[in-house]
């Protein structure tokens, strides 16, 4: 749903130009990649004068690197042809071709130098002197046989079972001959014939080919979401060096809901903006390595710092009020909430002083653990709060729907909450990653500006979060709606600023790190 659908509620400018934190890319359906594959095959088939099926095997063998293939092929065509599993060694060169002993020479048609790679199968029953029994199944009722260019003959049933298993169970696209030690690879028409009655496996085979093509091409990446067949093309993020200045978050396909969002530059399957891949990876590794130390933080209960009674967090808001003593405090830093509303709010900043003062090794290591926990605590909290606010919203949503029935509110009028929850979720993801970034940022002006933006966004998000947890009654809806809508617009702006400024900082090389970071000197 577009923001425009909310009428006057959200006055956000239309997206016209690409923002610094966004990246140019294209989402390709499998058919589009199949066309790219076909183009490469046609190209090679044309210049070598070989059949498409042979060109495909040659390209697959060279991981779709056309230039390298052409170079190697010009150098020694028969060696490449053998290595790619197209011809058996002895028949690699035309001069070494012996008479075709098995079935005349109908299949011996030569295309510019080498033997046609496979017979169309199932081949007609072979005219052998005595009845031929397939050496795999020993089933003498079999009448249809096939072989690759090596003439290792097996029954069609065995070929089909074998090829199906290779594709389905092993995800293999280069399917070797069934004979022991034979390196010939089944060309596509052979595979297709074997799978005549199984279009689903043939489909899967084509997907495997596309996946191999995509994996071999640095400009492309396959969508990591299960059973999605889209590919994203993002040449700007193809080089390692590009990843020190951009965070290539992409979304596949036009219609997945929620959209398949992932990083083009690394294996993280979520939006880790504004942090670049190498920092994100370092942070996740650190969290994994220190998971035990930090485990206690994930617990959903804490003690009130005033009366020590147990308090459970059940929403996304960090403004806690003790049920017993009414003490108001911040869930993250456990400090009094009153301080969070003022100019000297500093829940997001870690006071580095302690680390400087620490003299002996023990207090140094304690200081470094404390420092890590400061950032980890906030990181984990945003993650947890985002989840909790979505859960809480599920309850609210039900209530709103009921209200829509009992009061005279329209559907549009109750949607403002949903929009706000989505925004809170998005911003908490940004905030979460800003803590990973701040952990590695070198002290100084730039870090302070970064943390100012972080603080402003965080405060805005906490305010909105709190509003979302208000008791919903039909009477208050109009005012609440106005407040929530205003705050949502504001939060969204703060998020823009956070993302935009951080992205610019990467392009300008403004960020300095307190540890060596991959790609930076």
């Amino acid at each position, binding site marked *: 749903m577009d923001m425009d659908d909310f009428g006057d509620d959200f006055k956000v400018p239309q997206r016209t130009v690409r923002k610094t934190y966004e990246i140019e890319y294209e989402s390709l359906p499998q058919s589009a990649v199949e066309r790219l594959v076909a183009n490469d095959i046609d190209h090679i088939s044309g210049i070598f004068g070989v059949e498409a099926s042979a060109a495909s095997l040659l390209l697959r063998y060279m991981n779709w690197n056309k230039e390298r293939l052409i170079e190697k092929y010009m150098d020694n065509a028969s060696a490449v042809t053998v290595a790619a599993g197209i011809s058996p060694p002895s028949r690699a060169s035309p001069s070494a071709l012996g008479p075709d002993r098995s079935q005349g020479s109908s299949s011996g048609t030569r295309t510019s130098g080498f033997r046609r790679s496979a017979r169309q199968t199932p081949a007609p029953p072979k005219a052998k002197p005595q009845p031929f029994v397939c050496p*795999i199944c020993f089933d003498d009722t079999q009448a249809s046989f096939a072989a690759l260019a090596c003439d290792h003959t097996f029954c069609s049933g065995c070929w089909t079972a074998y090829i199906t298993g290779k594709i389905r169970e092993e995800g293999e696209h280069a399917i070797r001959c069934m004979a022991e030690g034979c390196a010939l690879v089944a060309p596509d028409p052979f595979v297709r014939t074997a799978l005549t009655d199984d279009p689903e496996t043939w489909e899967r085979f084509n997907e495997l080919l596309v996946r191999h093509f995509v994996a071999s091409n640095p400009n492309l990446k396959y969508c990591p979401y299960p059973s999605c067949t889209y590919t994203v093309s993002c040449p700007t993020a193809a080089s390692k060096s590009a990843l020190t200045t951009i965070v290539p978050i992409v979304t596949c396909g036009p219609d997945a809901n929620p959209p398949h969002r992932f990083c083009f530059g690394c294996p993280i399957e979520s939006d880790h903006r504004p942090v670049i891949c190498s920092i994100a990876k370092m942070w996740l590794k650190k969290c994994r390595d220190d998971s035990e130390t930090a485990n206690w933080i994930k617990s959903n209960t804490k003690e009130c710092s005033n009366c020590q009674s147990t308090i459970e967090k059940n929403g996304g808001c960090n403004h806690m009020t003790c049920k017993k003593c009414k003490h108001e405090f911040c869930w993250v830093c456990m400090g009094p909430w009153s301080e969070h509303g003022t100019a000297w709010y500093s829940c997001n900043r870690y006071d580095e002083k302690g680390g400087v003062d620490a003299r002996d090794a023990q207090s140094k290591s304690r200081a470094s653990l404390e420092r890590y926990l400061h950032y980890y605590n906030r990181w984990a909290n945003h993650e947890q709060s985002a989840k909790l606010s979505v859960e809480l919203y599920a309850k609210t949503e039900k209530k709103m729907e009921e209200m829509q029935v009992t009061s005279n509110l329209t559907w549009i009028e109750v949607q403002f909450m949903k929009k706000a929850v989505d925004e809170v979720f998005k911003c908490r993801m940004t905030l979460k990653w800003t803590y990973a970034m701040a952990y590695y940022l070198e002290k100084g002006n730039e870090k302070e500006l970064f943390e100012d933006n972080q603080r402003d966004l965080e405060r805005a998000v906490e305010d909105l979060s709190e509003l979302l947890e208000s008791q919903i009654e039909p009477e208050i809806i109009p005012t609440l709606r106005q407040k929530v809508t205003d705050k949502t617009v504001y939060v969204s702006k703060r998020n823009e600023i956070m993302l935009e400024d951080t992205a610019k900082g990467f392009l300008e090389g403004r960020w300095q790190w307190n540890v060596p970071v991959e790609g930076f000197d």
Partner: protein
Amino acid sequence: MDARLRRVNKEIADCKNDKASNIKIDLVDSSPFHLKGSFPGPKDTPYEGGVFEVDIVVPESYPFQAVKMKFITKVYHPNISSASGAICLDILKDAWSPVLTLKSTLISLQSLLCSPEPNDPQDAEVAKHYMTSKKSFEETARYWTHIYAGGLGSKGKVDTKEAAKDEIAIAGLEQTHVTQFEGLGFERSKVIDVLRRMNYRGSNAANISDERIIDELLK
């Protein structure tokens, strides 16, 4: 009939009829898909004289998927796990071909016993032993053949005095080395364990200082 069943039944029958071969395949229970293979250890190897039993599981998609085999008999060999009997052999993995049979695979296992491949080990400790001293390795392998596979071994029949030596010989260590550290007050089983792990054998023993061994023993 099920293709796998037909194929396995034929394989079992062919193996029974082949009187010249010394490879045996027997049923374990009523299922033709769980079998036990056995073959004699090859001549002129430390495994000579022993009979080696192999657990065979025929998977659902056999023969298009490799048969699963592991040694039941304990074997001292770089490519066979001394603990589990697991085998590192290419044809049991990627190099499997549907034309291979249970019998041909068992023959491959038999020839694996003739030609250890310590650079691609299944059992790293045994492989190290092999690389350090082939002679000492062979002695241990022969001893294992003797006590686990019913082979003759090098030491003739076991007498009672030798029973105490057992665990040292099984670990492929030297009596004098073990008693040296045992003399310092460490338990024999612990000493054997540490010396075996550190490959305290042949020329390698000179490379390992007593301190390092004691460090390990104290852990």
